[in-house]
Protein backbone atom coordinates (compact mmCIF):
# COMPACT_ATOMS: atom_id res chain seq x y z
CA UNK A 1 0.00 0.00 0.00
CA UNK A 2 1.22 3.48 -0.77
CA UNK A 3 2.35 5.72 2.04
CA UNK A 4 -0.55 8.14 1.91
CA UNK A 5 -3.15 5.50 1.12
CA UNK A 6 -4.73 5.63 4.56
CA UNK A 7 -5.23 9.40 4.21
CA UNK A 8 -7.02 8.87 0.93
CA UNK A 9 -9.19 6.18 2.48
CA UNK A 10 -10.09 8.57 5.30
CA UNK A 11 -10.75 11.34 2.80
CA UNK A 12 -13.09 9.32 0.63
CA UNK A 13 -15.05 8.06 3.64
CA UNK A 14 -15.57 11.61 4.94
CA UNK A 15 -16.55 12.77 1.45
CA UNK A 16 -18.99 9.88 1.23
CA UNK A 17 -20.64 10.74 4.56
CA UNK A 18 -20.91 14.44 3.74
CA UNK A 19 -22.40 13.68 0.33
CA UNK A 20 -24.94 11.29 1.86
CA UNK A 21 -26.11 14.05 4.22
CA UNK A 22 -26.34 16.54 1.35
CA UNK A 23 -28.21 14.00 -0.77
CA UNK A 24 -30.70 13.50 2.08
CA UNK A 25 -31.31 17.25 2.28
CA UNK A 26 -31.28 18.21 -1.39
CA UNK A 27 -34.08 17.76 -3.89
CA UNK A 28 -37.27 19.40 -5.13
CA UNK A 29 -37.97 20.22 -1.50
CA UNK A 30 -34.86 21.38 0.37
CA UNK A 31 -34.67 20.05 3.91
CA UNK A 32 -32.45 21.98 6.31
CA UNK A 33 -30.63 20.28 9.17
CA UNK A 34 -33.61 20.81 11.49
CA UNK A 35 -36.16 19.46 9.09
CA UNK A 36 -33.87 16.53 8.39
CA UNK A 37 -33.67 15.67 12.07
CA UNK A 38 -37.46 15.89 12.27
CA UNK A 39 -37.72 13.64 9.24
CA UNK A 40 -35.45 11.10 10.83
CA UNK A 41 -37.32 11.09 14.16
CA UNK A 42 -40.98 11.64 13.28
CA UNK A 43 -42.48 8.92 11.06
CA UNK A 44 -45.71 10.90 10.76
CA UNK A 45 -44.18 13.95 9.08
CA UNK A 46 -44.24 14.79 5.40
CA UNK A 47 -40.45 15.11 5.49
CA UNK A 48 -40.21 11.50 6.69
CA UNK A 49 -42.09 10.28 3.63
CA UNK A 50 -39.91 12.35 1.30
CA UNK A 51 -36.69 11.09 2.88
CA UNK A 52 -37.55 7.44 3.41
CA UNK A 53 -39.67 6.58 0.43
CA UNK A 54 -37.88 8.74 -2.15
CA UNK A 55 -34.38 9.75 -1.15
CA UNK A 56 -33.05 6.85 0.93
CA UNK A 57 -33.74 4.11 -1.67
CA UNK A 58 -32.29 6.35 -4.35
CA UNK A 59 -29.16 7.06 -2.31
CA UNK A 60 -28.67 3.39 -1.44
CA UNK A 61 -29.12 2.41 -5.07
CA UNK A 62 -26.61 4.90 -6.40
CA UNK A 63 -24.06 3.90 -3.74
CA UNK A 64 -24.32 0.21 -4.60
CA UNK A 65 -24.32 0.89 -8.35
CA UNK A 66 -21.30 3.16 -8.20
CA UNK A 67 -19.32 0.68 -6.09
CA UNK A 68 -20.32 -2.24 -8.32
CA UNK A 69 -19.46 -0.49 -11.58
CA UNK A 70 -16.10 0.75 -10.30
CA UNK A 71 -15.12 -2.70 -9.06
CA UNK A 72 -16.35 -4.33 -12.28
CA UNK A 73 -14.07 -1.95 -14.19
CA UNK A 74 -11.08 -2.76 -11.98
CA UNK A 75 -11.63 -6.50 -12.49
CA UNK A 76 -11.91 -6.13 -16.28
CA UNK A 77 -8.74 -4.02 -16.37
CA UNK A 78 -6.87 -6.72 -14.46
CA UNK A 79 -8.07 -9.53 -16.73
CA UNK A 80 -7.61 -7.72 -20.04
CA UNK A 81 -4.38 -6.07 -18.79
CA UNK A 82 -5.74 -2.85 -20.21
CA UNK A 83 -6.42 0.32 -18.22
CA UNK A 84 -9.50 1.35 -20.19
CA UNK A 85 -11.22 -2.04 -20.31
CA UNK A 86 -14.61 -1.82 -18.63
CA UNK A 87 -17.96 -3.56 -19.09
CA UNK A 88 -19.60 -0.39 -20.43
CA UNK A 89 -16.99 0.41 -23.08
CA UNK A 90 -16.72 -3.24 -24.18
CA UNK A 91 -20.41 -3.65 -24.92
CA UNK A 92 -21.27 -5.89 -21.95
CA UNK A 93 -23.65 -3.34 -20.42
CA UNK A 94 -25.40 -2.48 -23.68
CA UNK A 95 -25.83 -6.19 -24.47
CA UNK A 96 -27.39 -6.60 -21.04
CA UNK A 97 -29.65 -3.64 -21.71
CA UNK A 98 -30.71 -5.03 -25.09
CA UNK A 99 -31.51 -8.46 -23.67
CA UNK A 100 -33.42 -6.89 -20.80
CA UNK A 101 -35.57 -5.01 -23.28
CA UNK A 102 -35.99 -8.09 -25.49
CA UNK A 103 -36.99 -10.10 -22.44
CA UNK A 104 -39.60 -7.55 -21.46
CA UNK A 105 -41.18 -7.88 -24.89
CA UNK A 106 -40.91 -11.62 -25.46
CA UNK A 107 -40.82 -13.29 -22.05
CA UNK A 108 -42.93 -11.11 -19.76
CA UNK A 109 -43.78 -14.10 -17.55
CA UNK A 110 -40.19 -14.98 -16.65
CA UNK A 111 -39.45 -14.64 -12.90
CA UNK A 112 -36.54 -12.29 -12.14
CA UNK A 113 -36.71 -11.45 -15.84
CA UNK A 114 -34.68 -8.24 -15.99
CA UNK A 115 -31.77 -9.70 -14.09
CA UNK A 116 -31.74 -13.11 -15.80
CA UNK A 117 -31.92 -11.52 -19.25
CA UNK A 118 -29.28 -8.88 -18.45
CA UNK A 119 -26.94 -11.57 -17.16
CA UNK A 120 -27.55 -13.67 -20.28
CA UNK A 121 -26.87 -10.69 -22.54
CA UNK A 122 -23.70 -9.82 -20.65
CA UNK A 123 -22.50 -13.40 -20.88
CA UNK A 124 -23.10 -13.59 -24.63
CA UNK A 125 -21.19 -10.34 -25.18
CA UNK A 126 -18.37 -11.67 -23.01
CA UNK A 127 -18.14 -14.87 -25.04
CA UNK A 128 -18.02 -12.92 -28.31
CA UNK A 129 -15.37 -10.64 -26.83
CA UNK A 130 -13.09 -13.44 -25.64
CA UNK A 131 -13.56 -15.99 -28.40
CA UNK A 132 -11.26 -14.34 -30.95
CA UNK A 133 -7.83 -12.84 -30.71
CA UNK A 134 -8.97 -9.80 -28.75
CA UNK A 135 -7.63 -11.22 -25.47
CA UNK A 136 -4.05 -11.07 -26.71
CA UNK A 137 -4.19 -7.66 -28.34
CA UNK A 138 -5.25 -4.59 -26.30
CA UNK A 139 -6.13 -2.46 -29.32
CA UNK A 140 -8.16 -5.16 -31.01
CA UNK A 141 -9.99 -5.68 -27.72
CA UNK A 142 -11.10 -2.07 -27.48
CA UNK A 143 -12.13 -1.90 -31.14
CA UNK A 144 -14.10 -5.16 -30.93
CA UNK A 145 -15.64 -3.89 -27.69
CA UNK A 146 -16.68 -0.57 -29.19
CA UNK A 147 -18.17 -2.38 -32.21
CA UNK A 148 -20.08 -4.72 -29.88
CA UNK A 149 -21.34 -1.77 -27.90
CA UNK A 150 -22.51 0.08 -31.03
CA UNK A 151 -24.19 -3.08 -32.31
CA UNK A 152 -26.18 -3.68 -29.15
CA UNK A 153 -27.10 -0.01 -28.78
CA UNK A 154 -28.34 -0.11 -32.38
CA UNK A 155 -30.29 -3.31 -31.82
CA UNK A 156 -31.85 -1.80 -28.75
CA UNK A 157 -32.97 1.26 -30.71
CA UNK A 158 -34.36 -1.00 -33.39
CA UNK A 159 -36.36 -2.87 -30.78
CA UNK A 160 -37.47 0.13 -28.77
CA UNK A 161 -38.80 2.20 -31.69
CA UNK A 162 -41.88 0.02 -31.58
CA UNK A 163 -41.99 -0.46 -27.83
CA UNK A 164 -43.28 1.68 -25.03
CA UNK A 165 -40.54 0.70 -22.58
CA UNK A 166 -37.25 2.45 -23.12
CA UNK A 167 -34.46 2.32 -20.57
CA UNK A 168 -33.29 5.68 -19.26
CA UNK A 169 -30.42 4.65 -16.97
CA UNK A 170 -31.60 6.87 -14.16
CA UNK A 171 -32.10 6.49 -10.45
CA UNK A 172 -35.31 8.49 -10.69
CA UNK A 173 -38.35 6.60 -9.46
CA UNK A 174 -36.42 3.72 -7.94
CA UNK A 175 -38.47 1.97 -5.28
CA UNK A 176 -37.45 0.21 -2.10
CA UNK A 177 -37.89 -3.08 -3.95
CA UNK A 178 -35.33 -1.97 -6.56
CA UNK A 179 -32.97 -0.73 -3.88
CA UNK A 180 -33.23 -4.01 -1.96
CA UNK A 181 -32.55 -6.05 -5.10
CA UNK A 182 -29.51 -3.93 -5.90
CA UNK A 183 -28.29 -4.13 -2.33
CA UNK A 184 -28.49 -7.93 -2.23
CA UNK A 185 -26.92 -8.47 -5.67
CA UNK A 186 -24.29 -5.79 -5.12
CA UNK A 187 -23.17 -6.83 -1.66
CA UNK A 188 -22.73 -10.48 -2.73
CA UNK A 189 -20.62 -9.41 -5.71
CA UNK A 190 -18.57 -6.86 -3.80
CA UNK A 191 -17.73 -9.26 -0.98
CA UNK A 192 -16.64 -11.83 -3.59
CA UNK A 193 -14.49 -9.18 -5.27
CA UNK A 194 -12.71 -8.40 -2.00
CA UNK A 195 -11.97 -12.11 -1.54
CA UNK A 196 -10.51 -12.62 -5.00
CA UNK A 197 -8.60 -9.31 -5.17
CA UNK A 198 -5.21 -11.12 -5.00
CA UNK A 199 -6.09 -12.95 -8.23
CA UNK A 200 -6.24 -9.62 -10.01
CA UNK A 201 -2.66 -9.04 -8.85
CA UNK A 202 -1.52 -12.42 -10.16
CA UNK A 203 -2.68 -11.47 -13.65
CA UNK A 204 0.03 -8.81 -13.76
CA UNK A 205 2.31 -11.75 -14.57
CA UNK A 206 2.28 -13.47 -17.97
CA UNK A 207 0.25 -16.64 -18.44
CA UNK A 208 3.48 -18.62 -18.84
CA UNK A 209 4.88 -17.30 -15.57
CA UNK A 210 1.63 -18.16 -13.77
CA UNK A 211 1.66 -21.69 -15.16
CA UNK A 212 5.21 -22.07 -13.89
CA UNK A 213 3.98 -21.49 -10.35
CA UNK A 214 1.09 -23.89 -10.80
CA UNK A 215 -1.72 -21.32 -10.99
CA UNK A 216 -4.77 -22.33 -13.08
CA UNK A 217 -4.79 -19.18 -15.23
CA UNK A 218 -8.07 -19.92 -17.01
CA UNK A 219 -9.91 -20.45 -13.75
CA UNK A 220 -8.86 -17.15 -12.23
CA UNK A 221 -9.32 -15.22 -15.49
CA UNK A 222 -12.88 -16.48 -16.00
CA UNK A 223 -13.81 -16.10 -12.35
CA UNK A 224 -12.82 -12.45 -12.42
CA UNK A 225 -14.50 -11.84 -15.79
CA UNK A 226 -17.77 -13.46 -14.70
CA UNK A 227 -17.71 -11.57 -11.42
CA UNK A 228 -17.15 -8.24 -13.18
CA UNK A 229 -19.86 -9.08 -15.68
CA UNK A 230 -22.26 -10.02 -12.87
CA UNK A 231 -21.64 -6.74 -11.04
CA UNK A 232 -22.07 -4.60 -14.16
CA UNK A 233 -25.15 -6.40 -15.49
CA UNK A 234 -26.85 -6.37 -12.09
CA UNK A 235 -26.69 -2.58 -12.26
CA UNK A 236 -27.93 -2.64 -15.85
CA UNK A 237 -30.80 -4.94 -14.91
CA UNK A 238 -32.22 -2.51 -12.36
CA UNK A 239 -31.04 0.92 -13.49
CA UNK A 240 -29.64 0.62 -17.01
CA UNK A 241 -26.21 1.05 -18.55
CA UNK A 242 -24.06 3.77 -16.97
CA UNK A 243 -20.77 4.51 -18.72
CA UNK A 244 -17.26 5.41 -17.52
CA UNK A 245 -17.55 4.81 -13.74
CA UNK A 246 -15.53 1.63 -14.22
CA UNK A 247 -12.78 3.47 -16.10
CA UNK A 248 -12.54 6.71 -14.12
CA UNK A 249 -12.60 5.33 -10.58
CA UNK A 250 -10.00 2.49 -10.72
CA UNK A 251 -7.55 4.69 -12.62
CA UNK A 252 -7.84 7.43 -10.02
CA UNK A 253 -7.60 4.76 -7.31
CA UNK A 254 -4.27 3.53 -8.73
CA UNK A 255 -2.86 7.03 -8.54
CA UNK A 256 -3.96 7.53 -4.97
CA UNK A 257 -3.50 4.17 -3.26
CA UNK A 258 -1.08 2.32 -5.56
CA UNK A 259 -1.42 -0.58 -7.96
CA UNK A 260 -2.07 -3.42 -5.50
CA UNK A 261 -5.59 -4.68 -6.27
CA UNK A 262 -6.11 -5.51 -2.60
CA UNK A 263 -6.10 -1.75 -2.18
CA UNK A 264 -7.47 -0.69 -5.60
CA UNK A 265 -10.66 -2.77 -5.22
CA UNK A 266 -11.83 -1.58 -1.77
CA UNK A 267 -10.89 2.00 -2.60
CA UNK A 268 -12.73 1.83 -5.95
CA UNK A 269 -15.77 0.52 -4.10
CA UNK A 270 -15.85 3.59 -1.84
CA UNK A 271 -14.84 6.13 -4.49
CA UNK A 272 -17.26 4.65 -7.04
CA UNK A 273 -20.10 4.83 -4.54
CA UNK A 274 -19.26 8.46 -3.84
CA UNK A 275 -18.92 9.44 -7.50
CA UNK A 276 -22.25 7.88 -8.46
CA UNK A 277 -24.05 9.51 -5.54
CA UNK A 278 -22.46 12.89 -6.21
CA UNK A 279 -23.28 12.68 -9.93
CA UNK A 280 -26.87 11.66 -9.26
CA UNK A 281 -27.40 14.26 -6.53
CA UNK A 282 -26.01 16.96 -8.78
CA UNK A 283 -28.10 15.66 -11.67
CA UNK A 284 -31.33 15.89 -9.74
CA UNK A 285 -30.67 19.31 -8.18
CA UNK A 286 -29.13 21.54 -10.86
CA UNK A 287 -32.26 21.95 -12.97
CA UNK A 288 -35.02 21.36 -10.40
CA UNK A 289 -37.77 20.26 -10.93
CA UNK A 290 -36.44 18.45 -13.99
CA UNK A 291 -33.33 16.27 -13.78
CA UNK A 292 -30.31 14.94 -15.66
CA UNK A 293 -29.94 11.13 -15.69
CA UNK A 294 -26.98 9.46 -14.01
CA UNK A 295 -25.83 8.05 -17.35
CA UNK A 296 -25.74 11.52 -18.90
CA UNK A 297 -23.91 12.95 -15.91
CA UNK A 298 -21.29 10.19 -16.10
CA UNK A 299 -20.86 10.61 -19.85
CA UNK A 300 -20.20 14.31 -19.35
CA UNK A 301 -17.69 13.68 -16.54
CA UNK A 302 -16.20 10.39 -17.77
CA UNK A 303 -15.72 11.07 -21.47
CA UNK A 304 -13.26 13.95 -21.02
CA UNK A 305 -11.48 11.97 -18.28
CA UNK A 306 -10.78 9.05 -20.60
CA UNK A 307 -9.57 11.39 -23.33
CA UNK A 308 -7.17 13.05 -20.91
CA UNK A 309 -6.07 9.69 -19.51
CA UNK A 310 -5.11 8.37 -22.93
CA UNK A 311 -3.74 11.56 -24.42
CA UNK A 312 -1.44 12.22 -21.51
CA UNK A 313 0.15 8.89 -22.30
CA UNK A 314 2.36 6.54 -20.38
CA UNK A 315 4.05 7.33 -17.08
CA UNK A 316 3.96 4.78 -14.33
CA UNK A 317 1.18 6.30 -12.31
CA UNK A 318 -0.80 7.04 -15.43
CA UNK A 319 -0.64 3.29 -16.10
CA UNK A 320 0.76 2.48 -19.49
CA UNK A 321 -1.63 1.45 -22.23
CA UNK A 322 0.52 -1.45 -23.39
Amino acid at each position, binding site marked *: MKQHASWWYGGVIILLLVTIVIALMAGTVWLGPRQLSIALSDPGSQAFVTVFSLRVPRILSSLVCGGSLAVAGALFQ*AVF*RNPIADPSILGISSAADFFKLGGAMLLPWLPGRAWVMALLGGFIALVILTSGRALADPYRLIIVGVALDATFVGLQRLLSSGATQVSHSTFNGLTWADATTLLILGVIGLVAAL*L*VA*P*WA*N*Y*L*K*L*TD*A*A*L*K*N*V*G*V*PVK*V*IRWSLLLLGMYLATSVTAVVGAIPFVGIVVPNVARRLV*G*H*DYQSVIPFSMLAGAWLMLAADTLGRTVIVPSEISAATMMAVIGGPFVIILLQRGRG*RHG*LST*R
Partner: protein
Amino acid sequence: MDCQHVSYQYPHQNTGITDVTGTFPPGQVTTIIGPNGAGKSTLLKLLAHQLVAASGQITLAGKSVDQYTAKAFAQQVAMVTQHHQLYDDMTVSEVVQTGRLPYHGLLQAISPNEVVPFLKVTGLTQLAATHVQDLSGGQQQRVWLAAALAQEPTVLLLDEPTTYLDVHYQQDLMRQLRQLAATGITVIQVLHDINQAFRFSDWLWLIKQGRLIAQGQPEDLRQADLLADAFQTPIEIVDVPRLGPYIVQIPEA
Protein backbone atom coordinates in the same frame (compact mmCIF):
# COMPACT_ATOMS: atom_id res chain seq x y z
CA MET B 1 15.77 -35.39 -13.85
CA ASP B 2 16.27 -37.31 -17.08
CA CYS B 3 14.95 -37.82 -20.60
CA GLN B 4 14.13 -41.10 -22.32
CA HIS B 5 13.75 -40.94 -26.13
CA VAL B 6 12.04 -37.56 -25.91
CA SER B 7 10.76 -36.11 -29.19
CA TYR B 8 8.77 -33.01 -29.93
CA GLN B 9 7.85 -31.41 -33.25
CA TYR B 10 6.44 -27.91 -33.62
CA PRO B 11 3.35 -27.98 -35.83
CA HIS B 12 4.04 -26.95 -39.46
CA GLN B 13 7.76 -26.59 -38.79
CA ASN B 14 10.80 -28.74 -39.24
CA THR B 15 12.33 -27.79 -35.93
CA GLY B 16 11.95 -29.67 -32.69
CA ILE B 17 13.60 -32.30 -30.57
CA THR B 18 14.34 -35.82 -31.83
CA ASP B 19 14.92 -38.88 -29.67
CA VAL B 20 16.80 -37.22 -26.84
CA THR B 21 18.01 -39.51 -24.07
CA GLY B 22 20.17 -38.19 -21.29
CA THR B 23 20.40 -37.30 -17.68
CA PHE B 24 20.92 -34.19 -15.60
CA PRO B 25 23.17 -34.97 -12.62
CA PRO B 26 21.45 -33.90 -9.39
CA GLY B 27 23.05 -31.07 -7.43
CA GLN B 28 25.15 -29.98 -10.40
CA VAL B 29 25.05 -27.25 -13.02
CA THR B 30 24.20 -28.65 -16.44
CA THR B 31 24.38 -26.33 -19.43
CA ILE B 32 22.73 -27.03 -22.75
CA ILE B 33 24.75 -25.63 -25.65
CA GLY B 34 24.36 -25.69 -29.41
CA PRO B 35 23.83 -23.40 -32.38
CA ASN B 36 20.77 -21.17 -32.82
CA GLY B 37 17.66 -23.14 -33.67
CA ALA B 38 19.16 -26.42 -32.44
CA GLY B 39 16.27 -26.83 -30.00
CA LYS B 40 17.84 -25.70 -26.72
CA SER B 41 14.92 -23.58 -25.60
CA THR B 42 12.44 -26.20 -26.80
CA LEU B 43 14.18 -28.76 -24.65
CA LEU B 44 14.01 -26.43 -21.66
CA LYS B 45 10.29 -25.86 -22.24
CA LEU B 46 9.76 -29.62 -22.33
CA LEU B 47 11.62 -29.95 -19.02
CA ALA B 48 9.45 -27.14 -17.58
CA HIS B 49 6.36 -29.00 -18.82
CA GLN B 50 5.31 -25.94 -20.82
CA LEU B 51 5.42 -28.23 -23.83
CA VAL B 52 4.40 -31.88 -23.65
CA ALA B 53 6.66 -34.43 -25.35
CA ALA B 54 5.05 -36.12 -28.36
CA SER B 55 6.86 -39.36 -27.49
CA GLY B 56 9.32 -40.53 -24.89
CA GLN B 57 9.35 -39.67 -21.24
CA ILE B 58 10.79 -37.01 -18.95
CA THR B 59 11.12 -38.22 -15.39
CA LEU B 60 11.54 -36.21 -12.23
CA ALA B 61 12.44 -38.02 -9.01
CA GLY B 62 11.57 -41.33 -10.67
CA LYS B 63 8.10 -40.20 -11.75
CA SER B 64 6.96 -39.05 -15.21
CA VAL B 65 6.38 -35.30 -15.32
CA ASP B 66 2.89 -36.02 -16.75
CA GLN B 67 1.91 -37.60 -13.44
CA TYR B 68 2.48 -34.44 -11.42
CA THR B 69 -0.29 -31.95 -10.72
CA ALA B 70 0.56 -28.40 -11.78
CA LYS B 71 1.04 -27.44 -8.17
CA ALA B 72 3.17 -30.43 -7.17
CA PHE B 73 5.33 -29.86 -10.25
CA ALA B 74 5.77 -26.18 -9.36
CA GLN B 75 7.04 -27.25 -5.92
CA GLN B 76 9.79 -29.22 -7.69
CA VAL B 77 10.68 -27.26 -10.81
CA ALA B 78 11.13 -23.50 -11.22
CA MET B 79 11.90 -21.68 -14.44
CA VAL B 80 13.58 -18.34 -15.08
CA THR B 81 12.59 -17.37 -18.61
CA GLN B 82 14.45 -15.15 -21.03
CA HIS B 83 11.70 -12.60 -21.48
CA HIS B 84 10.09 -11.17 -18.40
CA GLN B 85 7.04 -9.04 -18.57
CA LEU B 86 4.79 -7.38 -16.05
CA TYR B 87 1.51 -5.89 -17.19
CA ASP B 88 1.27 -3.53 -14.25
CA ASP B 89 3.29 -2.12 -11.37
CA MET B 90 4.56 -4.61 -8.80
CA THR B 91 7.12 -4.29 -6.04
CA VAL B 92 10.08 -6.66 -5.74
CA SER B 93 8.52 -8.34 -2.72
CA GLU B 94 5.19 -8.81 -4.53
CA VAL B 95 6.85 -10.51 -7.49
CA VAL B 96 8.88 -12.81 -5.25
CA GLN B 97 5.73 -13.67 -3.28
CA THR B 98 4.20 -15.17 -6.42
CA GLY B 99 6.92 -17.81 -6.14
CA ARG B 100 5.17 -19.02 -2.99
CA LEU B 101 1.92 -19.76 -4.84
CA PRO B 102 2.65 -23.51 -5.20
CA TYR B 103 2.46 -23.77 -1.40
CA HIS B 104 -0.82 -21.93 -0.94
CA GLY B 105 -4.49 -22.35 -1.68
CA LEU B 106 -5.68 -19.83 -4.27
CA LEU B 107 -7.59 -17.81 -1.68
CA GLN B 108 -4.91 -18.04 0.98
CA ALA B 109 -2.91 -14.91 1.74
CA ILE B 110 0.84 -14.95 1.22
CA SER B 111 2.78 -13.16 3.93
CA PRO B 112 5.67 -10.89 2.87
CA ASN B 113 7.70 -12.54 5.64
CA GLU B 114 7.73 -15.79 3.69
CA VAL B 115 10.01 -14.35 1.04
CA VAL B 116 12.54 -12.69 3.35
CA PRO B 117 15.13 -15.49 3.02
CA PHE B 118 14.87 -15.51 -0.79
CA LEU B 119 15.33 -11.74 -0.95
CA LYS B 120 18.34 -12.09 1.30
CA VAL B 121 20.05 -14.80 -0.72
CA THR B 122 19.69 -12.74 -3.90
CA GLY B 123 20.77 -9.48 -2.22
CA LEU B 124 17.41 -7.79 -2.67
CA THR B 125 16.47 -7.11 0.95
CA GLN B 126 17.02 -3.36 0.60
CA LEU B 127 14.98 -3.25 -2.60
CA ALA B 128 11.95 -5.19 -1.32
CA ALA B 129 9.55 -2.24 -1.59
CA THR B 130 10.98 -0.89 -4.87
CA HIS B 131 8.95 -1.12 -8.06
CA VAL B 132 10.42 -3.70 -10.41
CA GLN B 133 10.19 -1.26 -13.34
CA ASP B 134 12.60 1.07 -11.55
CA LEU B 135 15.38 -1.53 -11.33
CA SER B 136 18.29 -2.13 -13.69
CA GLY B 137 18.33 -5.20 -15.96
CA GLY B 138 20.71 -7.01 -13.62
CA GLN B 139 18.57 -6.30 -10.57
CA GLN B 140 15.42 -7.40 -12.39
CA GLN B 141 17.12 -10.66 -13.27
CA ARG B 142 17.80 -11.21 -9.57
CA VAL B 143 14.12 -10.57 -8.80
CA TRP B 144 13.07 -13.37 -11.15
CA LEU B 145 15.73 -15.64 -9.73
CA ALA B 146 14.45 -14.88 -6.21
CA ALA B 147 10.88 -15.67 -7.31
CA ALA B 148 12.07 -19.00 -8.75
CA LEU B 149 13.99 -19.79 -5.56
CA ALA B 150 10.88 -18.97 -3.51
CA GLN B 151 9.34 -22.06 -5.12
CA GLU B 152 12.02 -24.03 -3.21
CA PRO B 153 12.62 -26.14 -6.31
CA THR B 154 14.79 -29.23 -6.60
CA VAL B 155 15.33 -28.35 -10.26
CA LEU B 156 16.02 -24.79 -11.43
CA LEU B 157 15.71 -24.10 -15.16
CA LEU B 158 17.18 -20.95 -16.72
CA ASP B 159 16.84 -19.87 -20.35
CA GLU B 160 19.87 -17.73 -21.32
CA PRO B 161 19.98 -16.03 -17.90
CA THR B 162 22.97 -13.84 -18.82
CA THR B 163 21.45 -12.22 -21.92
CA TYR B 164 20.75 -8.79 -20.45
CA LEU B 165 23.65 -8.71 -18.02
CA ASP B 166 27.07 -7.10 -18.36
CA VAL B 167 30.16 -9.27 -17.88
CA HIS B 168 30.46 -8.51 -14.20
CA TYR B 169 26.87 -9.55 -13.41
CA GLN B 170 27.18 -12.57 -15.68
CA GLN B 171 30.01 -13.95 -13.57
CA ASP B 172 28.18 -13.10 -10.33
CA LEU B 173 25.17 -15.03 -11.54
CA MET B 174 27.25 -18.02 -12.63
CA ARG B 175 28.90 -18.18 -9.22
CA GLN B 176 25.53 -17.91 -7.53
CA LEU B 177 24.19 -20.82 -9.59
CA ARG B 178 27.15 -22.94 -8.53
CA GLN B 179 26.43 -22.10 -4.90
CA LEU B 180 22.81 -23.09 -5.37
CA ALA B 181 23.86 -26.37 -6.96
CA ALA B 182 26.10 -26.97 -3.95
CA THR B 183 22.98 -26.80 -1.74
CA GLY B 184 21.49 -29.69 -3.71
CA ILE B 185 19.50 -27.91 -6.43
CA THR B 186 19.83 -29.36 -9.93
CA VAL B 187 20.55 -26.37 -12.16
CA ILE B 188 19.79 -26.72 -15.87
CA GLN B 189 20.47 -23.73 -18.10
CA VAL B 190 20.74 -22.76 -21.72
CA LEU B 191 23.73 -20.54 -22.49
CA HIS B 192 24.77 -18.82 -25.65
CA ASP B 193 28.38 -18.20 -24.65
CA ILE B 194 30.30 -21.48 -25.06
CA ASN B 195 33.25 -20.43 -22.96
CA GLN B 196 31.00 -19.41 -20.09
CA ALA B 197 29.28 -22.77 -20.41
CA PHE B 198 32.56 -24.68 -20.26
CA ARG B 199 33.88 -22.60 -17.41
CA PHE B 200 30.90 -22.65 -15.06
CA SER B 201 29.26 -26.03 -15.69
CA ASP B 202 29.68 -29.46 -14.15
CA TRP B 203 27.99 -31.19 -17.05
CA LEU B 204 27.27 -30.22 -20.66
CA TRP B 205 24.69 -31.23 -23.23
CA LEU B 206 25.61 -30.52 -26.83
CA ILE B 207 22.59 -30.22 -29.13
CA LYS B 208 22.59 -30.14 -32.93
CA GLN B 209 19.48 -30.07 -35.08
CA GLY B 210 17.26 -31.30 -32.27
CA ARG B 211 19.50 -34.22 -31.37
CA LEU B 212 21.74 -34.68 -28.33
CA ILE B 213 25.10 -35.40 -29.95
CA ALA B 214 27.26 -35.40 -26.84
CA GLN B 215 27.02 -35.08 -23.08
CA GLY B 216 29.71 -35.12 -20.45
CA GLN B 217 32.04 -33.11 -18.28
CA PRO B 218 33.49 -29.95 -19.82
CA GLU B 219 36.99 -31.41 -20.14
CA ASP B 220 35.62 -34.37 -22.12
CA LEU B 221 33.70 -32.18 -24.53
CA ARG B 222 36.41 -29.63 -25.13
CA GLN B 223 37.30 -31.07 -28.55
CA ALA B 224 37.71 -28.75 -31.52
CA ASP B 225 36.30 -31.15 -34.12
CA LEU B 226 33.24 -32.08 -32.03
CA LEU B 227 32.35 -28.42 -31.47
CA ALA B 228 33.17 -27.51 -35.08
CA ASP B 229 30.73 -30.17 -36.24
CA ALA B 230 27.99 -29.00 -33.88
CA PHE B 231 28.33 -25.31 -34.69
CA GLN B 232 29.21 -25.85 -38.37
CA THR B 233 32.13 -23.47 -38.15
CA PRO B 234 35.92 -23.95 -37.74
CA ILE B 235 36.89 -23.95 -34.09
CA GLU B 236 40.23 -23.70 -32.37
CA ILE B 237 41.03 -24.14 -28.72
CA VAL B 238 43.76 -21.78 -27.56
CA ASP B 239 45.48 -21.45 -24.22
CA VAL B 240 45.01 -18.10 -22.59
CA PRO B 241 47.46 -17.29 -19.77
CA ARG B 242 45.80 -17.10 -16.33
CA LEU B 243 42.51 -18.36 -17.83
CA GLY B 244 43.24 -21.71 -19.45
CA PRO B 245 41.73 -23.21 -22.58
CA TYR B 246 39.54 -20.83 -24.59
CA ILE B 247 37.29 -21.81 -27.47
CA VAL B 248 37.53 -19.54 -30.49
CA GLN B 249 35.12 -19.69 -33.40
CA ILE B 250 37.05 -18.84 -36.54
CA PRO B 251 34.92 -16.82 -38.93
CA GLU B 252 34.87 -18.37 -42.39
CA ALA B 253 36.66 -16.24 -44.95
